[in-house]
């Protein structure tokens, strides 16, 4: 049998990992899909919860947020929402932001703002739940 000849300079391991020059392969794309799947039930739960309880008093709202089940779901919602938001806005900026330094600076700014908003929201939930 004829020995198989390499038609690429990439190593077999590198090909399997699918990582190109960005060193991340399809991870960013895949995580956008994973977070979207997780956000589907969480978002519907949040929208339905709020839509059916408009005009809550402060005590009622604080009690609802602080309820252990709601607090856990809210923390999941917050983390996934801002991961998905940062990932989505990053792709938009990668497509449209020019020149290169504006692109990099705006993506970093988006990540920073998303991280801080997520932390602030998580702290608020934890203060009401603990």
């Amino acid at each position: 049998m004829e020995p198989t000849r390499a038609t690429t300079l990439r190593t077999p391991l590198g090909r399997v990992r699918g990582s190109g020059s960005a060193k991340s392969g399809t991870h960013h794309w895949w995580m956008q899909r994973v977070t979207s799947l997780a956000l589907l039930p969480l978002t519907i739960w949040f929208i339905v919860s709020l839509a059916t309880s408009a005009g809550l008093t402060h005590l009622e709202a604080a009690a609802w947020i602080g309820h252990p089940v709601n607090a856990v779901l809210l923390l999941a919602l917050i983390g996934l929402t801002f991961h998905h938001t940062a990932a989505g806005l990053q792709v938009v900026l990668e497509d449209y932001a020019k020149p290169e330094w504006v692109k990099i600076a705006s993506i970093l700014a988006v990540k920073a703002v998303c991280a801080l908003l997520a932390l602030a929201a998580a702290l608020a939930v934890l203060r009401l739940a603990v």
Partner: protein
Amino acid sequence: MSSVPDASDATMLGRRTDGTPVRRPLSPHLQVYDMMQMTSALSISHRATGIAWTAGAALMVWWLVAAASGPEAFAWVQWFLGSFLGILVLMGVTAAAWFHTLAGVRHLFWDAGYGYDIPTTYKSGRIVLVGTAVLTALTWLALLISW
């Protein structure tokens, strides 16, 4: 570019870095998409509603932080959400959220390899549009009933 005879030509006309025109294949861009077609209109709307939903996420943070801060801060956010501007923003976010959710499910089906043929694409597009209208209306009906 003095004239672009037809849409397919727009994907061939580029400029070198020194500004001189050149004919070579380019990636599709805004000029070649007919925004009166449902396919391209829904595609860019998915992006637009994703960006718009960011405003909703920021409102959620304000609401949570205000609830944790105390009655006074909470009264402020409730006042804004009940104001004319607040209701307008909330209505926009609700519609954007439902659109992005339904269009996102449509994208997940595509990612899994289903629904690529033209009739199915148009059918799922119509489902997204009608679904957005129905679910947005139902959300606000629930909101008004519980108010």
